[in-house]
Every structure is written in C-alpha cells, then in structure tokens.
C-alpha cells in the first residue's frame, strides 16, 4: 500500500511548523511566515499532527486559491488541513454550514442569508449601531478609569448588534461568549471543545425550535420558519453567525484601538479628519490580519499554482496576514498608513466564501473607532504596553485585555 502525499512527513525540516510563534511585534505576522514569503509565495509547511500542507503567502496566489473552485472549503475531504485536535473534532462533529460546503449547496444556503447583510440594509442600521456604541461608551466611562476596553466596549457592541439581528437574547451573552472562546482556542483540549460545541448547539437548537413554533422577524426566526431548512441546519447556522458576528469585530475594535494608540500620528489624522475613518478601517483590517492562522482549503484535483504543482488531496493554508503586506500590491506594506487605499486586502477572505457579514463589520468598526477617538481625546493605555498579552492561540487574533484611561 502506498501512502498518499498528504498523509505523512516528507516535510523539509526547515519548513515552518504551523501555527508558527509570533515575533516581538504583536501586529506583525509570525517571522516564519514572513521568511516563507521572502523565499517563495508557495512553500511547504508542517502541521501539528505530522502531516504537511502548502503555505500560500503571496497576494496573487492567495487570490487564486480562494477564488478557484478546485480548492474546497469542505472539511470532510481527506487532506483538509486542521489547525489543532480541537478544530478537527469541531469540524468533524458539527453539521456543516455554508462555510464548509462547496458549489451549488453552498450557494443555496448562503443565499438564504445574504439579503440580511446587503449594504443598503446595514447602512439603515447605522443609527442603531451608533446608539449602541454611544451607550457602551457611556457605561464604560461612568465606571471610571481604568476600564478594560475589550470587555467593556469592543466585545459588548458587536454582541448587542448581532443578538438583535439574529434574535438571540443578549442577557445570555456570558453563556455564548465563554463557549465561543473555547471553540476558537487551539490550545483547548478536545473534550472541552466537544462540550462547548454541544452546549452552544443545544442552546441554538432550543432557541430556533421556539422560533419555529412562534416565528418572529429576526434572521433566525425567518430561517427557522423555512420548510427547506432542517432544525439541525438552523441551529448550526445560528452557532456560526453568533460566533463569527461578535468575535471578529470585537478583536478588530480592540486591536485597532491599540494600533492607533501606538501610532499617535495616525490617530491624530483620524481625529482631525473623521471622513478618513472608512479608509482607516480598511487599512487596519489589512495591517492587522486578525484571521492570523490561515484560511484552510484542500485541492480536489492537481493544480499548478505559480509553477508549483499542488496535488489532489493536499491541504493549503492561505496566509491572509502576509498577503495583506505583499509589497507588490501594498507598497511599504509593513507600515500602517490610514490614508492609503487598502481595499485589496483579504481580511474578509476572497472567493465565494468571502465574509457574509462584511458590510456589518465595516459599519460597526467605522462607528466604534470614530466615536471612541472623538469622544475620548485623552484615550491612553493604563498599563505598560509591554505587559499586554495577545490571543496567539485563538483562531481570531487580538489583545486579551486592554486597560485604558482617558
């Protein structure tokens, strides 16, 4: 019996082991990925389980892989690269959502949700988001300095907004935030991940079953009432949207705030010219690349990628963080510049799986950062910068706590 190429070793000992450790700068991609990118845009890397996969670090190559249907997002295909035992457990056990489906089935399920996230509808939500941001900031400042900006502002705003949109009671946020955090933690033991997944799924199954009996106008209310959506699918979609809807924006808000505090000249420009906020958010999305462990795909057939033959059944990890700093597309890409045109970044991915909620994420980030820096001109770190700890083991990168004063 022969061993399929993706199954075992054949990894160059010098190839980076994934996920690679961060270097001294908390905003920069791990040095091993930058080194791989300097070597070639497509290189070999080793995963935790002894298997190997392709590390794609260049902008053009990431665009090609994520836009090509020959690379599958379906984790049930042999060779799909899992980032940890917990991630493998999670993806093998849960009902696949549109995030992990391909082709017509992916399109059918995604299109049930796209109407809720169209630009026009999100734009109409701006007054409500502004009010949510203002109230969160009122509560944070009323408590006095120092405050943890992550807990008291960055996490509460997107949680309130997504709960309203989905029809999930916000008073349950402690329950779902704790379990979301486990699902995204590579260091979490397999059993813990399994428990968190079952509990979160049971919570959403119960909630959507209630909405099926008494339909309401929330996104999950309308989804649960559809005859072509199974109870399992409604619950799994609820888990996905709830987790994705608050973790990503929360971490971008807090890490984006820290980036601006560490670049006071950029923050000053933003304060002087609030219209820059749209471009500033794109630049922060580009520069921070918080989906930092790579976007996984598996090749369904042999593909020549920039002169490298990727064989059917081989895993690929697309490194958004290095692609977003590719100097061929973003001159002087390591520099944060809120005035640059950063719109070609892949912070929301690329291809048909590109983030469904991006108009909402953009509106939340623009309103949160503009309001924060306008209302608190004296905003500053309340602890030494060097003492901050980061979410290095989490699927979504960020800062763990951000104690601030103003």
């Amino acid at each position: 019996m022969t061993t399929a190429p993706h199954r075992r070793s054949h990894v160059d000992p010098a190839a980076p082991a994934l996920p690679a450790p961060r270097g001294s700068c908390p905003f920069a991609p791990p040095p091993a990925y930058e080194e791989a990118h300097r070597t070639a845009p497509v290189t070999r890397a080793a995963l935790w389980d002894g298997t190997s996969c392709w590390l794609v670090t260049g902008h053009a190559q990431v665009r090609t892989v994520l836009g090509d249907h020959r690379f599958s997002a379906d984790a049930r295909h042999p060779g799909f690269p899992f980032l940890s035992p917990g991630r493998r457990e999670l993806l093998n056990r849960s009902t696949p959502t549109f995030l992990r489906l391909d082709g017509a089935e992916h399109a059918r399920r995604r299109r049930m949700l796209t109407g809720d996230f169209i630009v026009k509808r999100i734009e109409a939500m701006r007054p409500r988001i502004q009010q949510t941001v203002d109230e969160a900031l009122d509560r944070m400042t009323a408590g006095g300095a120092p405050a943890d900006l992550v807990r008291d502002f960055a996490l509460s705003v997107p949680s309130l907004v997504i709960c309203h949109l989905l029809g999930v009671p916000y008073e349950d946020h402690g329950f779902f935030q704790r379990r979301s955090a486990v699902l995204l933690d590579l260091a979490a033991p397999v059993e813990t991940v399994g428990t968190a997944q079952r509990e979160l799924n049971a919570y959403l199954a119960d909630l959507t079953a209630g909405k099926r009996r008494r339909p309401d106008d929330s996104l999950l209310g309308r989804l649960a009432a559809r005859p072509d959506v199974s109870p399992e699918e409604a619950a799994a979609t609820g888990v996905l949207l709830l987790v994705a809807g608050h973790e990503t924006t929360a971490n971008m808000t807090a890490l984006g705030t820290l980036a601006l505090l560490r670049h006071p000249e950029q923050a000053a420009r933003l304060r002087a010219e609030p219209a820059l906020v749209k471009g500033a958010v794109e630049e922060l999305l580009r520069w921070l690349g918080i989906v930092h462990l790579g976007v996984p795909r598996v090749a369904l057939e042999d593909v020549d990628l920039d002169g490298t033959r990727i064989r059917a059944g081989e895993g690929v990890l697309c490194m958004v963080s290095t692609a977003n700093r590719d100097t061929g597309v973003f001159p002087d890409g390591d520099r944060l510049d809120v005035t640059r045109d950063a719109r070609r970044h892949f912070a929301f991915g690329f291809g048909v799986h590109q983030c469904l909620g991006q108009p909402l994420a953009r509106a939340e980030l623009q309103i949160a950062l503009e309001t924060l820096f306008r209302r608190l001109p004296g905003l500053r770190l309340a602890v030494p910068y060097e003492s901050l700890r980061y979410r290095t083991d989490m699927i979504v990168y960020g800062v763990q706590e951000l104690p601030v004063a103003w």
Partner: protein
Amino acid sequence: MQVTVDQDRCCGSGQCVSTAPAVFDQSEEDGLVRLLLPGPDRALSATVRLAAALCPGNAITVLDD
C-alpha cells in the same frame, strides 16, 4: 465601457455596491447583484474596474468600447 454581471457567480458580498454604488445594487431578497448602469460613463472607469477586481465571485466583466 460595457459592464455585465453573472448572478450565478455572485455571492452577495456587497463589494461592488460599496465601491461603485452608481453602477451596482443588491436585491433585497437574496442580496445578489443588480446592474444599474450597463454602460457607465468613462469617468467611472477606475471605480468600476476596482469593483470587478474586488468581486470575490469574479461575477463582473468590464469591456472597453
């Protein structure tokens, strides 16, 4: 300049509407692309081309006159 869109490829990301709102719109039902201006003015050339480049589903085609 002639613009065409392929709804079968559209994934409703809204990139085109954010980039060139005078040319593209989204259906309120399924979020899919609706073309407002199939022959936009030359002045819009750069933004329409950027919208096509940013489209994650490669659903927008731009042809020169």
